[in-house]
Each structure stands twice: as structure tokens, then as C-alpha cells.
């Protein structure tokens, strides 16, 4: 029986049709992966959100923020307005005196970050409200940055934080300490504070915290810039590197805003949402793009890598809700967080939201990115096999005849495997991988003024590089078709491996890179057809990391310099790893693919024919010379 199976397996393995299959299989994987993604927003594949943590009990309490607190808010608003043109230190002096006046312990923290030749420095102020009857083992954080992520002055947010601090102080039911954090900006300040809170900071740049409380259980940031009345709350939830807060936190806010306050909620800057397929898809794709970029999107983002679930709340739309309504949403959310008995862990950490009430979880969406990543692996394995079995595809008829002989003599079977020349392919792929350190270092360390110039230089070099390296390769080594196959095989193998691992961490980034890199699967040398070679090279140039970066900048109408500065800032301050994926995973694969396309392998007899056009011509001689 086992011999029967192995015989059957070896017959299948040697079936020439099997070797023809992989490109189609790869294409199928990509198509299924993409179609899968587009099916997700449908009702059959997505699910309604639900609260899975019993302890949260969102919206079950009356919120009492309001009434005279409105006057308190106005008073603090005056104080904040008076501080607008003052320096960070002066602002903090005033904020400290206000918070101290409320009977809270206040701490301050300096930080200085250097990125792209700029210095980002400032001072955070924070106050700790100790739970009157709780133990000091846990804490929840309320954050208001002086300036929001867009650089607008967060007057209402800061005033609301002060009002809430005064209001929360009056309750005796807190089971966790509440930390009120005021930062000068939305990214660096919170990052410095959270790093220092977890003792993970570089003490040469960021001061240690003079005061601390228990383990952080959750954080809510207020980004309240507008002065008029609003309609709904915009929940910003993207963390650094596409990490997300627990879905229960978002659900709680949606539940409290919607159920208790009669307030709508929005996600991903979808100011209108009809909960139909196009809007769901748009929300999901926007979310994926943000996740893929991995940038910090607000003061909450810095908390998420430390497993502290956090969201930023922004008002939007024109309605009749005022600051007090926003305050009540925060009060309700804090009461829910206060009910927590342990870290949020029940609900999902990996999800795609397409509506405040609809999501898909990792189990449903992951196959999409995995299939795209798998296409590279399939092709890599196929090329490995192909590189070792020259002539098989060409002489299908004869191979059939030979098979009967093969079953009797092993010697003939082995005669079908050629020796693979591994040194050049391995060396080349390794070289490409190591070369990728250059752009990674360059773009994360060049000063701001040099960034655009460096990029243009690099883009130009990047266009020439494949031609240059191909020329040098051909000149010094004259790689055979087998070696080109192996170069491509190794580079695709690495790409497939990296992307499938990445898919579990940052699905969107893996899928984006996978889709942009999928032309690489179908690239091959065109020694006899310069036209095809040119077309392929143009296609590859269009999907090169540099071109995609430029296209993105043009599409979203941001200057290249800004994009690069933001990327460097995120790398230096937030620890965003997207540049590693772009320069060390995608770019080497692209380079190897381009060199393969430009390759001019000599039509030596030792190499198997690669294209249908040549098959017939070389087919006869291909077989006997294989050894």
C-alpha cells in the first residue's frame, strides 16, 4: 500500500501538467484573496458588534455631568483661552495650579525627541486622582493634548478635561485611579509619557515620571477643537503599527453615545454612513489603509502598543450636542472602565470595522492576506522544482513514455534532476536584502531639508539600479536561466514568508504590500523579446516602492517632504515598523524581480526552455543533455 501511494505520488509529481499549474494557482490565490476582501462588507460575512465583557455594563448608569458643571466649564475655558499665546512651561504652570487646586497630585515631565533634524520637545503635565475607596493597583487615563494631531488648538478638550477632573473628584465610586494627562502635542507628548510610565523610555531624551499609579487599564483622549454644537462622536482607534484597541472599548463608546445620549458615532472620517455596501467598503478600506501605514492617529495611539486600550473622541457634524454631552459620554465610558475587573480581553484585538455596529474578525479576513502571501510561496516552490527538472515541460509526450521506464530504474529518475547552481542566486538575494539597509538608514536619518533631495536621488538610482546590476551580472557571471529561476524563487520565498507572518500582526500592511508586489510572481527573463522586457520593466517601475510613495503623495496632495518627515518621525518617536517592511521586505523582492526581467540568459543547452515559443525548438535537445 505505501509503495502504491508513493508510486502514485511520484507519478503525480512527475506529471508535466502539475508543473504548468503553479502560475495559474498563484493567480487564483490573488484573485480569491481580492474577491474575499470585497465580500467582507456583506451581511453574510460581517457580524454585528456586541459587548462581550460582562463587567463593562455600558450605559447602565445615569450620568450627572451637566448643570452647574457647564459654568465650571466656561470658567476653565476662559482660563484656557488666556493661555493660548503663552509658552508650554507657562501653560503648564497654570494647569498645575488649577489641578492642584482641585486637590490632585500633579507631576510634570520633560521630553526631547530628535527626528529628521528637528527637535520635538515639550513638557507634559498630569494629575492623579486617587480612587477614594480603591486600591492603587489600576488606573485609567483621560488625555487632552494642547494641540490635536492636525496641530489645531484643543481649547474645549483641555477645558473639558479640567471640568471632568473637578467633577470626578466629587464621586467616591472609583475603583481605579484616574490620571488626567495634558500634553503639548498629540504624538510625542503622550508617547514620552506612556514610555516613561512603563519605564521603557530612554532617560537621556525623556524624563522619568515623578508620580505613578497602578497598571493602566484604558485611556480616552479628547480632541475637541470646534466651537459650535455637534451631532456625533468620531471614534479614532488606530494605534501604531496597525495595532488596535480591544473592540469592547469601541463598542462601549458606541453603546454609551448611541444608547444613552442619542448621539451618533462615526469611524474613519466617514461623516455620512448609510450602512450599505459601498459605505461599509469605504470605511473598511480607509481603516485598512490607516492600519497599513501604521502611523499614530491621535494621542491614544501611543497607549495601544503597551496593551492599554485607548481611543480618541472627536465631535463632528452639525447638531445640538454640546460640551456637556461630550462630557457625559466620557463620564459613561469611565464608569464602564471603572467596572472592569481585569484588562479588556474578552473581545477582539484583530478586526476590521466597517460601521460602528459591524465588523469582521481576524478569522474571517485573514485568509485574504494569507492567500496573497501564499501565491509567492507557491511560485517559489514551483520555480525550485522547475529549476531542477529541465526539459520536462517541453517533452510531455516523451516524458510519458519514459515514465514506464522510470518506475523500474531509479537511475533514470535521478537523471531528471539537474544540479542547481546555488551560489549566485543565494548571493544575489542576500545582497539585495543587505542593500535594503541603505534606504532604511537614509530615510530615517537624513535631515529634513535633505529628505526630498535624498528621495529623488534614490528614486533615480532605483530606476537605474536593476539595469546596472543586470548588466554587471550578465557581464561577469552570465547567469543561466536556472540561476534566474533560483533568484526569483528565493526572493519570492522570503517575500511569502515575511508577508504571511506579517499578516497576523498587521493584516492591512501585509495585504497592501502583497498586492503591490504580486506582479513579481509573473516576471521572467525575456532574452529574445526586448518589447516584452520593456513592458514588464515599465510595469515593475510603476509598482516600485518609490513610485508608490510618489503616487500616494500626489493622490493625497501632500508634499513628499512631509510624507518622509512624518515617516521618519513615526520611526524615531513611535517605533513604527512600516519602513522596515517597505525597504527590507518589499524593495529587495522588487529589485530581484526587476533583475530577473532584465536578465538575458544565454540559450545554452544546459538550460531548459522557458517559453512556449522556444519549447518546440529546444525541446528535443533539452532532454538528453540534462546531465
Amino acid at each position: 500500500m505505501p509503495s502504491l501511494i508513493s508510486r502514485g505520488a511520484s507519478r503525480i509529481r512527475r506529471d508535466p501538467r502539475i508543473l504548468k499549474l503553479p502560475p495559474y494557482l498563484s493567480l487564483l490565490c490573488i484573485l480569491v484573496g481580492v474577491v474575499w476582501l470585497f465580500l467582507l462588507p456583506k451581511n453574510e460575512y460581517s457580524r454585528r458588534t456586541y459587548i462581550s465583557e460582562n463587567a463593562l455594563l455600558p450605559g447602565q448608569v445615569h450620568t450627572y455631568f451637566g448643570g452647574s458643571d457647564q459654568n465650571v466649564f466656561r470658567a476653565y475655558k476662559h482660563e484656557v483661552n488666556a493661555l493660548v499665546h503663552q509658552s508650554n512651561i507657562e501653560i503648564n504652570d497654570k494647569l498645575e495650579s488649577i489641578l492642584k487646586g482641585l486637590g490632585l497630585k500633579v507631576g510634570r515631565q520633560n521630553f526631547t525627541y530628535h527626528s529628521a533634524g528637528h527637535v520635538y520637545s515639550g513638557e507634559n503635565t498630569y494629575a492623579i486622582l486617587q480612587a477614594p475607596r480603591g486600591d492603587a493597583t489600576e488606573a485609567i487615563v483621560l488625555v487632552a493634548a494642547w494641540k490635536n494631531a492636525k496641530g489645531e488648538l484643543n481649547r474645549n478638550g483641555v477645558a473639558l478635561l479640567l471640568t471632568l477632573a473637578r467633577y470626578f473628584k466629587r464621586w467616591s465610586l472609583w475603583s481605579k485611579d484616574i490620571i488626567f494627562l495634558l500634553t503639548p502635542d498629540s504624538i510625542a507628548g503622550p508617547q514620552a509619557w506612556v514610555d516613561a510610565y512603563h519605564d521603557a523610555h530612554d532617560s537621556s531624551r525623556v524624563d522619568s515620571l515623578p508620580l505613578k499609579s497602578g497598571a493602566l487599564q484604558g485611556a480616552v483622549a479628547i480632541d475637541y477643537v470646534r466651537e459650535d454644537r455637534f451631532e456625533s462622536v468620531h471614534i479614532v482607534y488606530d494605534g501604531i503599527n496597525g495595532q488596535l484597541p480591544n473592540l469592547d472599548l469601541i463598542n462601549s463608546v458606541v453603546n454609551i453615545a448611541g444608547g444613552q445620549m442619542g448621539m451618533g458615532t462615526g469611524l474613519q472620517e466617514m461623516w455620512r454612513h448609510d450602512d450599505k455596501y459601498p459605505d461599509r467598503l469605504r470605511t473598511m478600506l480607509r481603516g485598512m489603509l490607516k492600519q497599513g501605514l501604521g502611523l499614530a492617529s491621535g494621542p491614544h495611539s501611543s497607549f495601544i502598543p503597551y496593551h492599554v486600550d485607548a481611543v480618541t473622541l472627536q465631535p463632528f457634524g452639525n447638531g445640538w450636542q454640546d460640551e456637556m454631552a461630550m462630557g457625559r459620554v466620557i463620564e459613561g465610558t469611565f464608569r464602564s472602565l471603572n467596572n472592569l475587573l481585569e484588562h479588556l480581553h474578552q473581545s477582539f484585538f484583530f478586526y476590521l470595522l466597517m460601521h460602528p455596529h459591524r465588523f469582521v474578525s481576524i478569522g474571517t479576513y485573514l485568509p485574504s492576506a494569507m492567500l496573497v502571501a501564499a501565491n509567492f510561496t507557491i511560485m517559489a516552490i514551483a520555480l525550485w522544482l522547475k529549476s531542477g527538472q529541465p526539459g520536462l515541460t517541453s517533452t510531455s509526450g516523451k516524458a510519458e513514455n519514459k515514465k514506464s521506464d522510470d518506475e523500474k530504474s531509479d537511475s533514470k529518475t535521478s537523471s531528471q534532476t539537474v544540479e542547481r547552481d546555488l551560489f549566485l542566486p543565494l548571493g544575489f538575494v542576500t545582497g539585495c536584502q543587505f542593500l535594503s539597509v541603505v534606504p532604511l538608514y537614509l530615510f530615517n536619518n537624513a535631515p529634513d531639508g535633505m529628505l526630498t533631495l535624498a528621495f529623488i536621488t534614490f528614486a533615480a538610482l532605483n530606476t537605474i539600479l536593476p539595469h546596472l546590476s543586470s548588466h554587471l551580472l550578465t557581464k561577469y557571471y552570465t547567469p543561466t536561466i536556472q540561476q534566474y529561476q533560483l533568484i526569483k524563487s528565493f526572493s519570492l520565498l522570503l517575500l511569502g514568508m515575511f508577508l504571511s507572518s506579517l499578516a497576523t500582526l498587521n493584516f492591512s500592511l501585509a495585504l497592501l504590500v502583497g498586492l503591490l508586489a504580486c506582479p513579481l510572481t509573473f516576471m521572467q527573463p525575456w532574452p529574445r523579446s526586448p518589447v516584452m522586457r520593456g513592458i514588464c520593466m515599465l510595469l515593475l517601475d510603476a509598482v516600485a516602492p518609490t513610485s508608490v510613495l510618489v503616487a500616494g503623495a500626489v493622490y493625497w496632495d501632500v508634499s513628499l517632504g512631509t510624507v518622509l518627515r512624518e515617516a521618519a518621525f513615526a520611526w524615531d518617536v513611535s517605533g513604527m515598523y512600516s519602513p522596515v517592511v517597505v525597504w527590507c521586505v518589499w524593495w529587495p523582492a522588487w529589485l530581484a524581480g526587476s533583475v530577473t526581467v532584465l536578465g538575458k540568459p544565454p540559450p545554452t543547452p544546459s538550460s531548459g526552455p522557458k517559453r512556449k515559443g522556444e519549447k518546440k525548438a529546444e525541446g528535443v535537445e533539452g532532454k538528453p543533455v540534462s546531465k
Partner: protein
Amino acid sequence: MRLSSLLRVPALFAAALFAAAPVAQAEHTSNWAVLVSTSRFWFNYRHLANVLSIYRTVKRLGIPDSQIILMLPDDMACNPRNAFPGTVYSNADRAVDLYGDNIEVDYRGYEVTVENFIRLLTDRVGDEMPRSKRLLTDDRSNILVYMTGHGGNEFLKFQDAEEIGAFDLADAFEQMWEKKRYHEILFMIDTCQANTMYSKLYSPNIIATGSSELDQSSYSHHADNDVGVAVIDRYTYYNLEFLETEVRDTSSKKTVGDLFDSYTYEKIHSHAGVRYDLFRGGEEEARSRLVTDFFGNVQNVEVDGSKNTTLEEDLLSLSRTIAALQQKAEEEEQAARQNTTEAVKSKPMAHHKTQFAKPLTDENWWTKKIFGATALAGCALLWGISSFLEAPGK
């Protein structure tokens, strides 16, 4: 005639006592309650409120703290999340603080475990166990076992850490029966799929009731929006409603059947179940038990079994003498009929005399009367003069 009728009363009483003797055998002489909440954590506030409201009810109906075993796995009153520190309420009106005065919690916090619960029921405890933590029942004790928490098909979770199965419970009850630790049990459970918990019981004299069938959830009744949690479960809420409105004191004649009939799907939102088949006498007998047989404390006292035989002998001899007396009286009556007049005259005379109160001494009867009258008149005169003198003074 009259004498005989007077004498017939004790005879009847004695006859009634004899007739009641087998019933008296089936009566209980003490009432115990085992009230268990099995869940901790703030969001399970309602389970503690459930059990505390039943605790309050059984205390109201007379079961003393010494005969109530209360198991509370958590302390909601002192939870920092409690907006009303030191209190537990089972209603949003917050009229009755269940954690007010005189709460005796026998098993608290992590003491509430499956092992301790089963040890309590079967009394397999070490010497160090204080009496207050033991269920000191005998074969004349009626026990109310009330449990609430989170459960499933044939299990009930204890503190998110372990669970008790329906078989464990059934075996514990069987051990109790074998050890003559109960007379009758009313087992009441409020949890999801509660009815499955009593499905495995096999010991006699148990009436069991639960809040919901297999695959049914039990729901909370309402939440208090200031406490911020649900405060009571539906099944317990409607049990309490019945107990509060229909069983106002221990003299209530409401039966267990009446209580069970009050359960409706509309109220409880799940199918409450009852199990009578284990009970001696079946459904009819079980339904006729008074609610106070389990929720209240009994007043009837029974002396020890060894003296019971002498009592019966005494009663027998007593009834014999009564019968003899009766016969004698009838004979006398017959004789009296023949010479009626004298007997009739003498009898009212004697009767009349006894009606009056007699002064103890007869000496100076009139002197004393005059003395008293003079004193009274003097007082009246004094009062008259003083009021006359006061009037012109004004």
C-alpha cells in the same frame, strides 16, 4: 347533662390527640435555611442581592440567624464601585437596605467553595469548625436550600473557579437523607438552565423548583441606574413579591402550591420548573405544604421519642379515666333525675356565691365606709373652696 358535656371536651381532645399522632410524627421541629450566592464580582451584584433578599424574608418569617447559613462570595456593600457605600439594594427604589443591621454571613469570600458547600450539607467538617458554620439539622428539620449564580446544563459555577454538578448535589442530599439530616427540603435555584440542577436528585422528601428550563436563560428583573448594575433576577423578584404580599406573617396559610402557581412565563420570562415526585405523598402532599414550613420558623414542639411512648400511655389512661368518669357522671345524672328539685336548688346557690368578690375581713365595715365618705367629701370641699378663692382673685 351539663357535667357530661363538660367532661366530653377533654375526651374529644384526647381523641384528637390520638388521631393527630401519626401526623405529628411527620411534622418538623426546626427550620433551617441554606442561602448561597455563588458568584463574585461587581457585575454580579444582583446575585448577592437575590440571596440577601431571601435572607431578609426568612428572618422576617422567624428563622433565627443561628439557623441560617448565608454564603456570600463577595462584598458588594464595600465594593469601591458602590455609589451607596455599605448598602445592598434589591430594588431600584432603594427602600430596603438589605445590608443594614444584623447581617450574619457565615461563609464569606473565598470560603464559598463547592467543597465547603458539600461539607456543610453533609456535616463532614472538622472539629475546628464553629457551630455557626455548621448545619446542625436532624430528621425533624425542614431545610430551605436557595442557590443563585451562573449555571449551565447540570452545573452551577462557584466564583468563576469551579462548579458543582447536578450529580454532586444529588449525592449530597442523599447523604443528608441517610444521615437523617433533614425531614423535608425545599430546593430553590435561580440561575440559567436551573431546572437541570435538580433533575438528578433522588432522595425522598425534596420539593425542588428552578427558574428556567434546559437551554433557557434566567434574566435579571431590572437595573438601578445609580448603582449601575442589575439589582435582582426575575425569578427571585417574583418569589419575593409573593412572599411579601401573600405571606405576611407566620400564620399565613398559603401553600407551596400557591407559590408555584404564581410563576408565569410572562413574569419570569423563562419556564420555571417544579419537581414533586421525590416527595412522600407526591404532588398533592407536596403542594399542600405551607410556605412557612420552609420559609418560616415552626412553633410546634415535640418531646423526645423515648418519652413519646409514656405520653401515649398517659393519654390512654387519661382517656380511660375520662371514660370512667363519664360513665359515672351519667349514672349520677340518672339518679339526679329522680330527685331533681334539691339538686337544682343547691347548684345555682353554689354557683351564685362564687360569682361575688368577698371582702377579706368583716370587721368595722360601716365605720370604714363612713371614714372613706368623709375623706372624699373633705376633698371635694377643699377643691370647691380653692376654686371659689381663685375666682375673685382674678
